[in-house]
C-alpha cells in the first residue's frame, strides 16, 4: 500500500512540475486564452500580470501553427499569434467590465517589450469601435471607449490624444443630431471620464476643460420629458443623462477622487516613460484614434437604452447637496448591536461618492447585460465589484433602474425580478434593502409614470410570492384615512388593489386572507369566477328585477346542443335562427348567447375553453360574415361577450383574448376597439387592458420580425439553388436532376411569396391598429380635457360640503385616470415608434390635425426625440442589435415600396413562368 501511494504522489508531483515548466516555456493557446480571460479572478494580480505579459510577448511573434483543435483554423499565424492575442484581448475588454484597468496594464507591460503591440491594440480597438457604432452595439462601444481612455494612464496613448478622441465623440452632441444620438454619445464620454479625467487634468487641463464645456452646454440645453419617471415633484425632470452629468460634475469639483476603479498600472513605476517611445511611433500612423470619426447617424440607428433615474436611495441632484437621509424603513427589532450593524448600512451608503455610484452603475449595467444567460453567475458577479463601501443599495437601485427603463426593459422584466430574488436568497443584507426600495417606490406611486407603476405592481407581487407574502401591511393603513391627501391616497389605493389582484393570480384567495390584515380585505378581489348570463342560481343584486335575462330558452337550447357534442357550428346558427321566432334578437344578442354557451361548456380548464372555441369557430365566423357591413362591430361583440363571461377575472379575459386572436376569430384591431369601449375606458387606471393591448401589438411585431427572417433565409436558399441549376445547365446532367432542382426552387419561391404576403398582411393590420389607436386616443383624451375644463369652471362655484367632497374625489380619480391614459399613450408611441415611423406623416395629417396641444406635445415628443428603441421581440435573449436593426431597415423599405413589388410578384406567380418570378425576386433583394 505504502509503496504504491508514494509512487502515485511522485507521479503527481512530476506531472505538476512538467506542467509548470510548460507554462514557463511554451504554453498552449488554450491556456493563454484562459490566462487572459481569467486574470484577476483570483488573488495575486501582480504575479498573474507578470506571468501573462511575458507569455503574451512570447506568443506575439510565435509563428508555429496552433495546436489546439478548438482554436485551430480560426486565426492566421503567419504574423505570429497576433490575431489570436488581439481577438481574445479585445473580446475580454468588451465584455469583462470590471477588468478594464487590468487589460490596459497588460497592454502597457507588453508594449514595453514589443513596441508595435500597443499600436496594434489601439488600431484594432478603433476599428472595432467604429463597427460597434455602425451596428449600434452601444454596450461594446461603451467599454471600448472606456478602455481607450484608460490607456492614457499608462501612456500607451498620450493624454492629449485621449482628450481629442473624447472631444470627437462629444462633438456628436448637438450638431442637429437627434436627441437619442446626442444622449448616447454624451453618456459614452461621461462614462469614460472616471477612468481618465485625473490624468487629463494633470497633463492637458485645457483640453479637458473644453471637453467638459461642450458636455455642459449640451446637458444644460436639453429637455427630455418623454422618458420621465415621475410626472411631478422634485427631480422629476432629471433623467439618466442629467444624473450622470451631476455625478461627473461632483467628481470634477472634488478633485478627481475615485476609489472603485482597479488601477494596477499604478504599481509599475516607469511604465509611462517606457511607452512614450511607442506613442511617438504611433503618432505617424494615419488611422490613429485621436482622429477617430464616429460613423454618421442613420435614420435606422437604434440608440442606447437609458436606465430610469429613480433617485431611490440617493439625492436626485448631487450638485445641490444631500437630501433627507432618513431611512424610510426602520431596521427590524433586535439586539442593540444588531441595530448598529443595520444602521451602518443605512448611513454607509451616503459615504459612497457620486462618481463611485456612477462607476458602480456602469458595472451593474454591464454585468446584467453580459451575464444574462446565467442568473447564478450574474448574481455572483454582482457581489464582487471592487467597491470599498457596502454597495448593496447601489446594486438594488441599479437593477431597479433597469427594470424601470422606459418604454421597455432591455431584457424581460422577469430577469430583473428573479435576479433581485436570488440576491435576497444569497445574502441577508438584500431583503432589507429591497424592502426599503419597495417602500420608497410605494411613496412615489402617486407621481410615478403609470407604465412604471404597472411594472412595480408586477415586481412587488412576484417578489412577495417568492418570499411567503411577508410584508408590513400595517404601515400602509394611513391610506384608509379620510383626511389624507386625496390624490396620493387614490393612487396608492389603486396600487394596493392591483397588487392584491396580481397576488391572487399567483396564489389563492384564502392565502391572501391569511396574510393580509383585515382592514385591507375590502381590496382583495373575489376569487375569479365565470358569469353565465342565464344561470338560475345567479345572485341577483338587490333592486333588480327577478326576471331571468331575455332569450333564456334559446340559450338553454344552444347550451344543451353544445353539451351533447354532436352538433356542428352550422347547426348551431340554424338553431339560433329558429329560436328567434319573433325576430327580436339582434346579431349581438345571438353572439352573446353563442359565446356564453360555448364558454360554459369549456369551463373546466383554459385548454378546454380553447378546444371549444376552436370547435365552434365556424359558427362565430358565420355570424360575423353574415353582415359584411358590420363585421368589425360584430367581432367586437364577441370580445365583449367573452369578457362579460369572465367579468371579475382580468387573467381569464387576457387568456380569452389571446385565444380569440390565435384562432383568428377576431382581428388585432378589435382589441383596440375593446380598449375604447366605455366600460373598459372607465378602468384604464388598472393594468390589465393595457396588458391585452401590449400582447396584441407584440404578437404582430414578432410575427413580422420572424417572417422577415424566414423570408431572408429563403432568399439565400433560392440564390443557392439558382446557382446550382445554372451549373447543371452547362454540363450533360440528367434531366431528372435538373427537374428536381427546378422543382425545389419553385417550392422555395412559393414559400417566399407566402412569407411576403404574410408580412404584407401583418403590416396592414399594424397600420390599421395604430391609426385606430391614435384616433380613439385623441377622441378620448379630448373628451376628458373638455370634462376636466368644465369641472374646473365648476370649482369657482360655491359648493356644499358633501358635493365638495364628491367633487374632490372625482378630481382625484380623474387625475389618476389621466396619468394612466397619458402614460400608456406615450408608452405605445415610444415603444412601437419603429413600427409607426413609416406612417408618421400620414398620422400627423389624418389623425392629429388640429388636436389639443397637450396631445400634440406627446405626439411630437416621440418623433422629435427619435427615441428609436432596441426592440427585442423574444426579450429573453441577449438583445443583439443585429436583428432589430435589419428589421427596422427592411420594415421601412417594405412599407415605403414593398406593396408594389408584392403585386408584381403575385402576377409573376400567376403566370407560372419561373423566369419572370426570378426577376421579381431579384428586384426585391
Amino acid at each position: 500500500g505504502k509503496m504504491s501511494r508514494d509512487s502515485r504522489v511522485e507521479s503527481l508531483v512530476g506531472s505538476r512540475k512538467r506542467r509548470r515548466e510548460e507554462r514557463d516555456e511554451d504554453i498552449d493557446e488554450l491556456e493563454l486564452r484562459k490566462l487572459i480571460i481569467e486574470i484577476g479572478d483570483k488573488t495575486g494580480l501582480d504575479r498573474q500580470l507578470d506571468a501573462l505579459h511575458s507569455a503574451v510577448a512570447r506568443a506575439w511573434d510565435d509563428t508555429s501553427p496552433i495546436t489546439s483543435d478548438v482554436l485551430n483554423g480560426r486565426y492566421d499565424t503567419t504574423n505570429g499569434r497576433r490575431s489570436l492575442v488581439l481577438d481574445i484581448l479585445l473580446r475580454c475588454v468588451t465584455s469583462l467590465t470590471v477588468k478594464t484597468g487590468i487589460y490596459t496594464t497588460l497592454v502597457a507591460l507588453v508594449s514595453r517589450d514589443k513596441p508595435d503591440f500597443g499600436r496594434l491594440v489601439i488600431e484594432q480597438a478603433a476599428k472595432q469601435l467604429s463597427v460597434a457604432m455602425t451596428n449600434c452595439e452601444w454596450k461594446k462601444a461603451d467599454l471600448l471607449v472606456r478602455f481607450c481612455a484608460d490607456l492614457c494612464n499608462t501612456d500607451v496613448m498620450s493624454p492629449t490624444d485621449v482628450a481629442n478622441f473624447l472631444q470627437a465623440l462629444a462633438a456628436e452632441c448637438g450638431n442637429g443630431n437627434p436627441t437619442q444620438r446626442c444622449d448616447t454619445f454624451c453618456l459614452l464620454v461621461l462614462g469614460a471620464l472616471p477612468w481618465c479625467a485625473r490624468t487629463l487634468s494633470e497633463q492637458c487641463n485645457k483640453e479637458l476643460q473644453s471637453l467638459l464645456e461642450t458636455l455642459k452646454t449640451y446637458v444644460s440645453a436639453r429637455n427630455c420629458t418623454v422618458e420621465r419617471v415621475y410626472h411631478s415633484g422634485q427631480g422629476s425632470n432629471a433623467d439618466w443623462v442629467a444624473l450622470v452629468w451631476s455625478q461627473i460634475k461632483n467628481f470634477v469639483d472634488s478633485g478627481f477622487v475615485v476609489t472603485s476603479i482597479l488601477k494596477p498600472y499604478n504599481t509599475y513605476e516607469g511604465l509611462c516613460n517606457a511607452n512614450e517611445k511607442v506613442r511617438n511611433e504611433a503618432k505617424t500612423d494615419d488611422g490613429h484614434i485621436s482622429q477617430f470619426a464616429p460613423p454618421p447617424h442613420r435614420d435606422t440607428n437604434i440608440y442606447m437604452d437609458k436606465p430610469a433615474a429613480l433617485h431611490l436611495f440617493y439625492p436626485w441632484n448631487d450638485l445641490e447637496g444631500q437630501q433627507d437621509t432618513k431611512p424610510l424603513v426602520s431596521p427590524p427589532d433586535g439586539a442593540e448591536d444588531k441595530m448598529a450593524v443595520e444602521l451602518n448600512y443605512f448611513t454607509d451608503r451616503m459615504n459612497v461618492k457620486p462618481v463611485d455610484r456612477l462607476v458602480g452603475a456602469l458595472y451593474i449595467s454591464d454585468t446584467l447585460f453580459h451575464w444574462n444567460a446565467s442568473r447564478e453567475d450574474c448574481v455572483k458577479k454582482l457581489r464582487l465589484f471592487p467597491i470599498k463601501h457596502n454597495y448593496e443599495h447601489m446594486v438594488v437601485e441599479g437593477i431597479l433602474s433597469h427594470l424601470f427603463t422606459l418604454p421597455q426593459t432591455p431584457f424581460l422584466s422577469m430577469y430583473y425580478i428573479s435576479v433581485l430574488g436570488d440576491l435576497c436568497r444569497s445574502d441577508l443584507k438584500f431583503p432589507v434593502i429591497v424592502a426599503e426600495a419597495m417602500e420608497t417606490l410605494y411613496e412615489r406611486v402617486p407621481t410615478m409614470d403609470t407604465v412604471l407603476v404597472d411594472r412595480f405592481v408586477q415586481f412587488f407581487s412576484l417578489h412577495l410570492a417568492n418570499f411567503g407574502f411577508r410584508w408590513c401591511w400595517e404601515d400602509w393603513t394611513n391610506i384608509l384615512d379620510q383626511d389624507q391627501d386625496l390624490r396620493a391616497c387614490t393612487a396608492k389605493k389603486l396600487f394596493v388593489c392591483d397588487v392584491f389582484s396580481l397576488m391572487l393570480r399567483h396564489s389563492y384567495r384564502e392565502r391572501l386572507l391569511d396574510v393580509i390584515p383585515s382592514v385591507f380585505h375590502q381590496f382583495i378581489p373575489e376569487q375569479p369566477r365565470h358569469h353565465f348570463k342565464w344561470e338560475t342560481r345567479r345572485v341577483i343584486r338587490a333592486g333588480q328585477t327577478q326576471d331571468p335575462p331575455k332569450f333564456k330558452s334559446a340559450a338553454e337550447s344552444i347550451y344543451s346542443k353544445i353539451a351533447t357534442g354532436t352538433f356542428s357550428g352550422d347547426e348551431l346558427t340554424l338553431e339560433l335562427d329558429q329560436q328567434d321566432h319573433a325576430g327580436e334578437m339582434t346579431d349581438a344578442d345571438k353572439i352573446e348567447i353563442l359565446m356564453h354557451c360555448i364558454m360554459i361548456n369549456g369551463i373546466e380548464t383554459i385548454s378546454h375553453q380553447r378546444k371549444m372555441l376552436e370547435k365552434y369557430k365556424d359558427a362565430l365566423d358565420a355570424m360575423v360574415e353574415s353582415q359584411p357591413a358590420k363585421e368589425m362591430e360584430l367581432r367586437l361583440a364577441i370580445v365583449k361577450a367573452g369578457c362579460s363571461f369572465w367579468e371579475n377575472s382580468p387573467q381569464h379575459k387576457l387568456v380569452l383574448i389571446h385565444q380569440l386572436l390565435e384562432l383568428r376569430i377576431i382581428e388585432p384591431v378589435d382589441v383596440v376597439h375593446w380598449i375604447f369601449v366605455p366600460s373598459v375606458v372607465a378602468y384604464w387606471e388598472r393594468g390589465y387592458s393595457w396588458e391585452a393591448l401590449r400582447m396584441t401589438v407584440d404578437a404582430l411585431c414578432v410575427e413580422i420580425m420572424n417572417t422577415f427572417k424566414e423570408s431572408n433565409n429563403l432568399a439565400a436558399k433560392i440564390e443557392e439553388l439558382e446557382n446550382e441549376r445554372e451549373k447543371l445547365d452547362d454540363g450533360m446532367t440528367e434531366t431528372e436532376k435538373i427537374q428536381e432542382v427546378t422543382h425545389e426552387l419553385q417550392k422555395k419561391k412559393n414559400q417566399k411569396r407566402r412569407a411576403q404576403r404574410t408580412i404584407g398582411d401583418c403590416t396592414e393590420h399594424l397600420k390599421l391598429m395604430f391609426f385606430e389607436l391614435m384616433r380613439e386616443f385623441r377622441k378620448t383624451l379630448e373628451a376628458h380635457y373638455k370634462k376636466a375644463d368644465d369641472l374646473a369652471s365648476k370649482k369657482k362655484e360655491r359648493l356644499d360640503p358633501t358635493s365638495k367632497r364628491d367633487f374632490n374625489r372625482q378630481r382625484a380619480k380623474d387625475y389618476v385616470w389621466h396619468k394612466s391614459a397619458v402614460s400608456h399613450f406615450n408608452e405605445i408611441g415610444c415603444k412601437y415608434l419603429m413600427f409607426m415611423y413609416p406612417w408618421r406623416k400620414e398620422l400627423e395629417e389624418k389623425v392629429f390635425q388640429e388636436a389639443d396641444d397637450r396631445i400634440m406635445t406627446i405626439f411630437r415628443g416621440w418623433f422629435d426625440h427619435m427615441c428609436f428603441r432596441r426592440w427585442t421581440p423574444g426579450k429573453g435573449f441577449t438583445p443583439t442589435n443585429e436583428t432589430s436593426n435589419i428589421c427596422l431597415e427592411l420594415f421601412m423599405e417594405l412599407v415605403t415600396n414593398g406593396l408594389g413589388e408584392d403585386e408584381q410578384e403575385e402576377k409573376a406567380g400567376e403566370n407560372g413562368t419561373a423566369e419572370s418570378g426570378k426577376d421579381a425576386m431579384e428586384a426585391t433583394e
Partner: protein
Amino acid sequence: MAHLYSTSAVHRKDQSLYRDSKFDGSHEDQESALARSTTLYVGNLSFFTTEEQIYELFSRAGRVRRVIMGLDRIKKTPCGFCFVEYEDRASAEACVKYINGTKLDERIIRADWDAGFKEGRQFGRGRHGGQVRDEHRSDYDAGRGGYGAKYRAETQQNVFSSFDSTGADSSIVFHGDKRKANGSSDADRAVKRQRTPPKTASAAAPNTSSTSAAATAEAGGTSDATTTATTAPSTTTTSVDVAGDDDDDDDEPTDRFREQEDDYN
C-alpha cells in the same frame, strides 16, 4: 460574457438534466428535438397549484400556447408536474433562464427542456399513479400529498389510522401543515381552496378526449358543471404501460435539483 468562460462548445447551462426515458426515437432525435423545442417540463409543483397560476407565472416569459397538467394516472388529479408549451423558442429560453428556480405557490419549481408533449405523458408513471419521485419519498411534503406513496402504503395502517376518520380520501392523507403557524391542516387548506386533489374536474388535456366536457348539469344550473366530474380521456388511460414502471425515474428531480431546493429553503 458567459461564453468567454466556457471552453467547450456547449455551455453547461444549455444542457438539460432531464430526459424522457420513454422518448420514442434515438438519442440523437431526442437531442435535436430538445434543441428546437418550445416545450418545458415543469416539476416540483404543489398538487394544489392550478392551471391559472401556472399560466400567470409562465406568461411572464412569453406567450404560452398551452399548459398540460400532469395527472395521477389512477385518480386523474394533478400530481405535481406539468408541460408548458410556448409560442416561440425565445420565450421558452427566457423561461428556463428567468423562471426556473423561482417559487410558484411557495415552492421552488424546476423548468427544464422537453422534447414535446405526446398524448399519455400527462400521466404519472409511479406505481401508485403519481410521479415516481413521490413513490419513494419518505419525507413529509404537504403540497404533494404528504408522505411518499410507497411509504404511505406500507405504514398507513399503524401511523395514520386516526386520520382516516377525518373523512378525507384515504389514499391522500392530510396532516398538520408544519409551515403554518396557525396550525390549519392541509385538509383545511385544500377545502379552502376548493380544489381538493381527488376532484376529477381537472386539467386533462382535452385534445384527444372525444367527450371532453360531459357536463351533466342542465342549462339552468350550470354552475354545477364546474364541480361535476369530467370523463377523463378514456383512450389514454389504458395505453400507458404500467409494467416495469418502478425503475423509471424520469420524472424524478435529479440530485442536483434536490440540493438546490435545500439551499434555497
